[in-house]
Structures are given as C-alpha cells and as structure tokens.
C-alpha cells in the first residue's frame, strides 16, 4: 500500500510536458479514428433552432459576425450551420461585422453555404454589409438609421442599389437577429443596444468561455437560446441534420474532457495523500 501511495505522490509532480503530450494525443487520435459518440441537443440549442424554424420564407434575418481566426474553430461551425438553416428556409440574410476579421469569416461562410451549397443570389437573397468600427456606437446607429452607418456594402455597391435593402432602414425592420460572437463587441452589446430596445427576437452563438456571461440574458428571456462553443455547433448541426466541422470535433472534445477530469481527480488525490503524510511526520 505504501509503495502505491509513494507512486501516487511521485506521479503528482509529473513533468507538465508529459501532460501536454497526453492531451495532444487524445485530441489527435479521435480526429483520425472517430468514435461516433451521440450528440444530444440541449434546451438552449433547441431554442435557437425553434426561433429560426418560426421564420417564414422572405423574412429578414440580421446576422452579425464578431469573431476572427483565433476563435474560428468554436464559432465558425455554428455560423455555417445557422446560415444553412436560414437559407434552407429561404430567409433573407443581412450580414454585418463588428470585428474587422469577421468580414473574412463571413465571406468564407457565405461562399461555402450561399454560393456553393444553396446557389443563392447576392443582393436578392443575402448581402454582406461588411465591417464598421465603433462597437456599440455602430449598433446604436443601426437601430436608428441603417444608412447612417452603411452607405455601401462590402463590395462597394450603394445600399439603395441593392434590391433586398428596399424597406430596410433600421434594426426594427428585421424579424430575427443572431450574433456570432467571440467577445467585445458582441452579444452583450447587441442585447443592450438592439434586442432590448427594439424587441426583435435575438439568439446568439458564443465561445464556451462566454457562456457564463451571456447565460443570464438567456435565462431572463432577453436572448432566445444560445449555442455554446463547438458543442453548441455540433448540436445545431444535428438539429438541422447536416453534420459538419462541429460534429467531427466532438469525439476529440469528449475524450479530452474525460482525460482532463481524470488528471484533476488524480492531482487532487496526490495532493491529499501528500498533505496527509506531511501532517503525519
């Protein structure tokens, strides 16, 4: 027994680089050999799905891209899945970006979904308005007058020359609002300056780390549903029955979590054994 406890104490001071290698392996292996673990949608993901389901063909959805390459693995899969659902329902999609790199993320998602998959027409079915700096001031501007903030879209077309911009003057003209957000400015600012003052139904997709910050708005009904990180994206992909990047990463995610939980439990056992011994002597 003592030998075993000695081993536990020694293993507790394991070189951190060994842990890095183990984590790397448990993430890489499921990417090569998928386990096909089941994905069950949570209530919050289901709420986002239901909100989009309630939209009718021709309704207007404002989607805002507030993330960049550094958070792409978490947010991009859900942005792609949401666009698929919106285009599937023939909803008109208007895209704005509060982050400069969000514009490139939006371009990539639109090329994949709107152009290649659904063959949608630019200016009639969707429009990429582009990036505007100014954070909440931009949202505030969009709430009062769209054309104060955007006079041209990301391609340089005048807004008045874009067919689907006819009759769209402010945020209140939209039927649905979605913020794909990785931080500031993002979901919280859209709630404060757009969704709450106008009453437009809003859902969001955020990085995992933001979920705790945004969840109070979901619980209070200020936001209808939230997609949290890669699992949120995988759940949405399963709801629209179109598996994508989110689904393929979930096996690695689940196995890595199990190993990390294992490390935490083992680390605690080692700590308590060591503490008990030091008290004893």
């Amino acid at each position, binding site marked *: 027994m003592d030998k075993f406890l000695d081993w536990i104490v020694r293993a507790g001071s394991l070189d951190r*680089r060994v842990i*890095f290698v183990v*984590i*790397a392996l448990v*993430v*890489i292996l499921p*990417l*090569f050999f998928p386990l096909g673990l089941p994905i069950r949608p*949570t*209530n919050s993901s289901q709420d986002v799905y239901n909100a989009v389901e309630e939209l009718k063909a021709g309704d207007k959805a404002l989607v805002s891209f507030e993330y960049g390459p*550094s*958070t*792409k*693995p*978490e947010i991009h899969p859900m942005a792609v899945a949401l666009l698929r659902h919106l285009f599937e329902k023939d909803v008109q999609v208007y895209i704005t970006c509060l982050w*400069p*790199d969000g514009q490139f993320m939006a371009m990539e998602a639109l090329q994949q979904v709107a152009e290649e998959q659904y063959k949608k027409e630019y200016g009639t079915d969707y429009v990429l308005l*582009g*990036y*505007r*700096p*100014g954070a*909440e*001031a931009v949202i*505030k501007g969009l709430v009062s007058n769209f054309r104060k903030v955007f*006079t*041209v879209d990301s391609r340089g077309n*005048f*807004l*008045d020359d874009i067919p689907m911009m006819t009759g769209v003057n402010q945020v209140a003209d939209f039927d649905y609002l979605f913020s794909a957000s990785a931080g500031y400015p993002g979901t919280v600012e859209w*709630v*404060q*300056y757009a969704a*709450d*003052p106008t009453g437009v139904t809003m859902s969001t997709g955020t*990085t*995992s*780390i*933001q*979920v*705790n910050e945004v969840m*109070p*708005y979901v*619980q*209070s*009904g*200020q936001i209808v549903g939230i997609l*949290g*990180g*890669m*699992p949120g994206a995988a759940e949405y992909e399963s709801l629209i029955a179109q598996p994508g*990047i989110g689904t*393929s*990463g979930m096996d*690695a*995610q689940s196995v*890595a*979590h199990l190993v*990390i939980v294992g490390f935490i439990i083992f680390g605690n056992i080692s700590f308590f054994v060591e503490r008990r011994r030091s008290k004893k002597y």
Partner: protein
Amino acid sequence: MNGSEIFGAWVAVFLTLGIFSYLYKDNPFYKIAEHVFVGVSAGYWMAMAFWTQVQPNLFGRLWPTPEGQISGFLMKTWYGIYNLFGFVLPSVFPDGGIDKGHGHDPHFIYLLPFALGIMMLLSVASKLSWLARLGIAYTVGMAAGLRAYAFLNSNVLGQIKGSAVSLVDMPFFSLTGVSVFNNLIILVGTITGLLYFYFSKEHAGAFGKVTRVGIYFLMISFGASFGFAVMGRISLLIGRFTDLITYGSSTYNYASIWVLLLMIVLLAVWTFKGEKKSVSQ
C-alpha cells in the same frame, strides 16, 4: 491549389508549431511567431480601421464627389486642399472627390471628430500632449453616456425582471425546465450572492452563514466558468490540429510533417548548444 495558398499553409504551419514550441520552453521559434503575430495584428487593425472608417466615412463626408462644377471661393479652397492631399496620397484622395454614398455636399460637422482624432495623435508630442485629453475626454464622456442607459435597461432592470421568479403554477421539480425547485435556487443564489458583496456589516453569526451560502454559489459559478474555459481551449486545439492534419497532406507538400521535423531538429541543436555553453561557462 496555387502557389500562394501552399505558401500560406507553410507559413500557418510554421507559426502554429512555433507557438506550440513554447510548451517545451521559450525558444527562438516562439519568439519569431510571437513578434510576427503582434506586428501583423497591429498593422492589420490599423489598415482595416483606416480603409473602412477614416477614408470612406470621414474623408468621404468631408470631400464627397461634388455634383457638377465646383463654384464659390470657399468650396474651391476646400477642394484645393483636397487636391493638395490627393497629390501626396492619390490612393486615399482620388481625383474628383470620394464617392461613398454620402451625397455631394461636404459635411463640415465632421471637422470636429477629425480635429479630435488629430488631438489624440498629438499625445506623442510632449509639448502638445495636453490636447490629447480633449479627444480622450470626449470619447470617455460619449461612451459613459451611451452605456449608462443600456446597462440600466438590460443589465439592471432586465436582470431584476428575470430574477423575479414565480413559485406557483409549475411542477415542483424539473431537471432542465422551469420548476419551483429551480426557481428557489435562483432566488437563494441571487440573494445570498448579493449579500456576500455587502461589506458594511461583518460577515459573522447568522449573516456570516448566509454569505457563506453565497460563496458556494459563486464557487459553483467559477467552476462552471473554468469548465467552459477548458472546453473552449480544447476546441481551439482541435481547430489547430485539424488544420495541421489538412496541411500535412500531399496537396500542401506535407507542410506539417516537414516543418515539425525541421523544428524538432533545430530545437535539439539549439538546446544542445545551450547546454554546452552553460557547462563551459
């Protein structure tokens, strides 16, 4: 796949592995990746802000393309200044004014933000740095005013409304949905959590016991945040590994494999030389 895409993949692989190499220890590859990241980010943000805001929305409003011939002394002088700028920077100030859909008449009110912006830049000149305070004061004042109402409405009133839960006409227990039990948790958690931050009374006796409950709620919240943070980091790791696997294919001339091998060899040489040097010293 064209040459620039393959080159881009090699650069991406080098930078990713360069950052990962820090897990071994601080080394020149990490330093290169870190400095490139900081430099490129700063340059990218500056270029984006200039070409999406300053040039179209500030200069575009101050010097829009005039309708017909410029007449009048003031306008001729005004566009004379523009032509002077255009002579120095023709890409920023193109011939005949900037056409970004802001009409044909200059909006002179925008001289105010232009002047405030210049004042903020003067912070680098020690004798004139006091002028920067005006720009900063305007920004802080504007932001405070803009946020005051939004925070009051969404974060105070909205959250109070969300926390005012009902304890009747619902099932007593539900694991995920609305129930008396879950609402009691919200009620107790909100009150005890708020009381913990009440420092005008010593946390002792019955009051101390109540605030202790508040600490447990806070700890559970921090635990959830930690869990989400781990989940987010693993998602990002999956994203990087997915890209490395893609770039390790023959399409990209096995970029991941070659860069990884080269980096391991060079790191081994660098470590060996470092150890030899320290021994000789």
